[in-house]
């Protein structure tokens, strides 16, 4: 006959293990959401131009230019960065 104390300990241990597994399962997703490093869809638009719609007044600019302004360090040091191994796996 298993005592109540042993059952309680078993239940608590199981709960802890399951909680840890769930946290570890979602941990990469939480990290990516908190500190996103994926810049979005790969560039598909070729040579988008700066224009402004008439009535709609929606300016559109070159995505490539925007990215270069945001990541100047990465662009300039791409050559050095490319020699590093991929740490994402």
């Amino acid at each position, binding site marked *: 006959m298993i005592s109540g104390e042993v059952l309680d300990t078993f239940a608590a241990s199981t709960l802890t293990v399951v909680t840890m597994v769930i946290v570890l399962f979602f941990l990469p*997703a939480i990290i990516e959401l908190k500190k*996103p490093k994926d810049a979005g*869809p790969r560039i*598909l638009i070729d040579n988008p131009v700066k*224009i402004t719609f008439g*009535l709609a007044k929606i*300016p*559109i600019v070159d995505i490539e230019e925007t990215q270069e302004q945001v990541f100047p360090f990465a662009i300039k040091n791409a050559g050095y960065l490319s020699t590093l191994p991929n740490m994402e796996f």
Partner: protein
Amino acid sequence: MIEWVLEIFFIFLTGFMMAYLVRHYIFTLTVLRGANRKRKPKSETVSFEPTVSIIIPAHNEEKVIGRLLERVTELTYPKDKLQVLVVDDASSDKTGAIADDYESRCSFIEVLHRDKETGGRGKSAACNAGFNRSNGEVILCFDADYYPTRDIVEKLTCEFADPTVGAVQGRVVVLNEPQNIVTRLVALERIGGYRVDQEARENLNLITQYGGTAGGFRSSLLKSLHGWDENILAEDTDLTFSVYLAGYKIRYNLDAECYEEAVDNWKSYRRQRLRWAKGHMQCFFKHSWNVLKSRKLNSIEKIDALLLLCVYFMPIMGFLSLLTGLSLILVGSNFASLLWLFVPICLYSFVGNFAPFFEIGVGTYLDGRARTQWLIPLLIFNFFYNIPICLKAFFDVAASKILGRKNIVWVKTQHSGNGNCYIKN
């Protein structure tokens, strides 16, 4: 007796889900195997320039219609062979005015205004109105929130050089992906669906699906099919099966890419998926028997077609299998202890409904988006969220079938123009 019935039902559900498991594994391996092949885009090897009519149905799309129309003026397809028909479908905002502005500046753009009496009855009705005014040999459709590549028309129309091709579909990519968690998860679903699922069906000559936008039809075929069925909510799926049952094929061109603005909140996600689920189920009731008895489809195509028609029943099936398995355990069935393992395996493998985990993982890998794979575990929430959505869709469709109702309420997806910030300063 009850135990016996539950066991039979459980075997049926497990077998059903195993079929999807095998199907998605085959799709993923097919695309992986073909990924290293370097191929020239078909538009560079095939020269075919028919007259094209682009239909753009728009209902209250003032925040996005201008973006698309400006892009249309930049298309590289010869403008003398292009006709763009904007269907201002009973809009109460500036959609009509914006479209009229472009019509006054571009000779190949026409605007068809529909008032509240003749319009506002959904996308299918708007597309039919545009189709009646069209004069192109090929009919393409773009939703108002879409943003295509400049050469998309050439890439789509070159497929029609093959006379057996009745329709074509391009790849859809989410424009506002970085916006929030909803858009990021929807983008993952799109990657799995277009980069892997559609590509695999194209490579395996199975049932390639017309997605409702960024695609099109041979005008003569569309005329023989009497255009879009205004009683079906998933007009794209309906036309997909109509095309195949008419003896034609649908081609998917991975290189013909188009950005879309994905839903950015869970309420819009639910409304959109509810419409898709209802429409898909309507198509199941409309086409499944025709697929089974069709002489224009081979056995493999029929199997794939039926699996495609049943895809929105899968969340319901998964839920039922969990309930059935639980019931078998409660009644003390020995059978359950052996087959119960299949339930979590199948649940894991097909979860995602539109694109299971491994399809999405491979799709992001092929797109060079390894970091995005970290979000894949979150798709399990999408799966559980889709269960009540598909259940409601099923009850709604079943009730309308039983009561003989044909009133279709088209719940439009609201576009906020948030995608503009990803292509603006």
